[in-house]
């Protein structure tokens, strides 16, 4: 019988700082998740980040992960020789001076293997965040919001902080992240 080993101490999270520069040349391409051949409703997901004073956070790195139009996630490559999938479901952008960034993507479908509402997972990094934050974007007109198991974990009065709203042109969805304040966005611990 082997003695159970004491687990290793996980490396501590640290801020990205204001000067992040990840992936040579990659950041330009990470704002477009869906090329022309990807099926689904084309949307522009615009995420704005505001600090405790309501001021735009102009030095954040925003990552999104989402399912495709069928609600399925791309699987990670099993070998380095695997061709990249058409829709990898991952995006990454820096915020502008106005604290926002916009992803060209498709509207995700309802989860393929679970009951619940379609959503986009957002991961936020910035100066002043010693650990990154997770939140979720839901779509305000989704009929499945009332039965989404994660939204039901959230106190009812805070659920609206997780909704994206359709903007003027119909294809743009706006989502505001408020780090603090009366409408502080709900953040999750995975």
């Amino acid at each position, binding site marked *: 019988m082997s003695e159970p080993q004491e687990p290793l101490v996980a490396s501590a999270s640290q801020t990205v700082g204001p*000067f992040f*520069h*990840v992936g*040579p040349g990659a950041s330009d391409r990470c704002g477009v998740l869906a090329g022309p051949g990807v099926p689904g409703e084309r949307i522009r997901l615009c995420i704005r980040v505001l600090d405790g004073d309501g001021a735009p956070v102009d030095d954040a790195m925003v990552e999104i992960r989402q399912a495709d139009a069928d609600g399925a996630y791309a699987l990670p490559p099993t070998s380095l020789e695997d061709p990249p999938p058409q829709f990898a479901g991952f995006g990454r952008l820096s915020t502008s001076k106005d604290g926002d960034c916009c992803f060209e993507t498709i509207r995700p479908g309802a989860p393929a293997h679970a009951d619940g509402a379609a959503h986009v997972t957002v991961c936020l990094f910035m100066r002043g965040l*010693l650990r990154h934050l997770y939140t979720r974007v839901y779509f305000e007109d989704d009929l499945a919001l009332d039965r989404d198991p994660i939204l039901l974990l959230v106190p009812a009065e805070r659920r609206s902080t997780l909704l994206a709203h359709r903007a003027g042109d119909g294809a743009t969805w706006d989502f505001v992240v408020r780090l603090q304040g009366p409408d502080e966005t709900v*953040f*999750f611990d995975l």
Partner: protein
Amino acid sequence: MSNRPMSDRHALEAGSQPPLLYPPYKSTVKRAPTQPLIVIPERFASLATPVYGYLPIGEADNDLTRQHAGEPQGERIIVAGRVLDEDGRAVPHTLVELWQCNAAGRYRHAKDKHPAPIDPNFSGAGRSITDAEGRYRFVTIKPGAYPWGNHDNAWRPAHLHFSLFGHSIATRLVTQMYFPNDPLCAWDPMFQSVRDPRAQQRLVSQFDLSLTEPNWALGYRFDIVLRGRDSTPFEARV
């Protein structure tokens, strides 16, 4: 002793992960959420969401000294190590990204106003993929210390930024690597936000003569430990 890895909450309580609000690091004050995080129980979490790493890695992506026409200024170093999970298992085929300032302490970034020279031969960003045993390797330049406005006479210790994805959304990590015996770490609120001495030690690389190449570059070993596969918290906390 259970071999189940610590949940994030337990890691926080033990001081091996920094808190979100840490007033000595001033920028946390207006940016740390004030409401408790809502735990997503493992049975609901879409842990199989995609990880990143589909972009092909270029030949010089892990050698920051060969990305330009000339060699960058400064002390050439080799940084290598293994990416493991909390149970000590290798994390193969995962993207490791690195970014840093140059030898003079200046980032090639529009927002960096530190009056130190920009090095035309140094971009300060690299990528590598771990091999089947979880190993990665970079060749780069030792970064300089630089001042910042956090407190009186504040200087960041020399450090490299690392970004890792692991194999699930819960293993995503951005961390920093420090150098052995750097006196500035004692005054650095980012380093000091990690209270557990073992976790602090994990952030400091070790000089390694076996990685060092004669007449060429000093070697530093930096192993990175990601959360384990089963380390999501198991009870709801609202």
